């Protein structure tokens, strides 16, 4: 897809995501940070120095240090989709964006 196609696809996708917009990287990275919670202590404060907390602004890190963590989560598939699965359909018109033939990739 070209950049123009991507933009048009995002604009059209707002209607298929009940929240009314497509996701932004922060929507996903926030969950990655949550899951990166340290398992030993059961709190974000248990993250080692140099761990994921270093990427957070200090006030946010201090708050999370007192927050219960994801230490009991494993084997979970966390869906972050703006409600997309609520409306997902295999109706042909929704398949259209991906059905257009494209040049095949060169042999690998």
């Amino acid at each position, binding site marked *: *897809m*070209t*950049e123009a196609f*991507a933009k048009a*696809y*995002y604009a059209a*996708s707002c209607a298929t*995501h009940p929240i009314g917009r*497509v*996701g*932004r*990287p*922060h*929507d*996903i*990275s926030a*969950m*990655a*940070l949550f*899951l*990166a919670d*340290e*398992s030993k202590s059961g709190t974000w404060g248990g*993250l*080692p120095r*140099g*761990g*994921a907390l*270093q*990427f*957070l*602004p200090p006030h946010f890190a201090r708050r999370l240090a007192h927050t219960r963590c*994801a230490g009991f*989560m*494993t*084997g*979970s*598939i*966390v869906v*972050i*989709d703006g409600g*997309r*699965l609520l409306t*997902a359909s*295999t109706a*042909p018109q929704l*398949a*259209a*964006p*991906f*059905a*257009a*033939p*494209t*040049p*095949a*990739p*060169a*042999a*690998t």
Partner: protein
Amino acid sequence: MNDERPHPLTVHPPTPNHSFLAVDLTDGAAAAGLVDRAVELLPGGRLDVVVNNAGGGLIGQQFGAAESAPGAKAAAYDAVFNLDVKAVFLITDAAVRHLTPTRGIIINLSSVAGQRPMGGLAPYCAAKAAVDMLTKTAALELAGRGIRVNAIAPATVETDFHRAAGSLPCSTGAVAYHVSHHRCTRHPTLQPLQA
């Protein structure tokens, strides 16, 4: 795939808090070797978190459609599965011995496409379903070591992913940039990765 990609395991100049390795994850041996190489760059050789974020899909893979060239469908399938599934499998395997002492975690980036079919995307949908089951199997096996394994399944997210979706390999590195964006600006060598 082009022949001008950087040599696997090229080390980019590190920032104060980050090091970058450019690796073609469709190359199984390179993917398997990535973890050990990365751990060497980490302070104290300590590995806490693995995020299997690289991935991609190829559109226009309808069943029954004519092949654009002999072997094109098999090549498309291999390209998608090697990057989206095989690399996750091999990296998870290689990371276990490093994550065991730290009771670390693995995060796999899946997709809602692993739970709902989308026309023209059979290899991608099947690959992401495979990622979900790799996640669950690894979680089961590794729980005894204190290693947690979870997956995140996004819907459409504004990244470089869709601009690149017609031409594997591509990277969804935008999430990684944002995980670290308070300490690291977008690294020039990681701009739309066509390596």
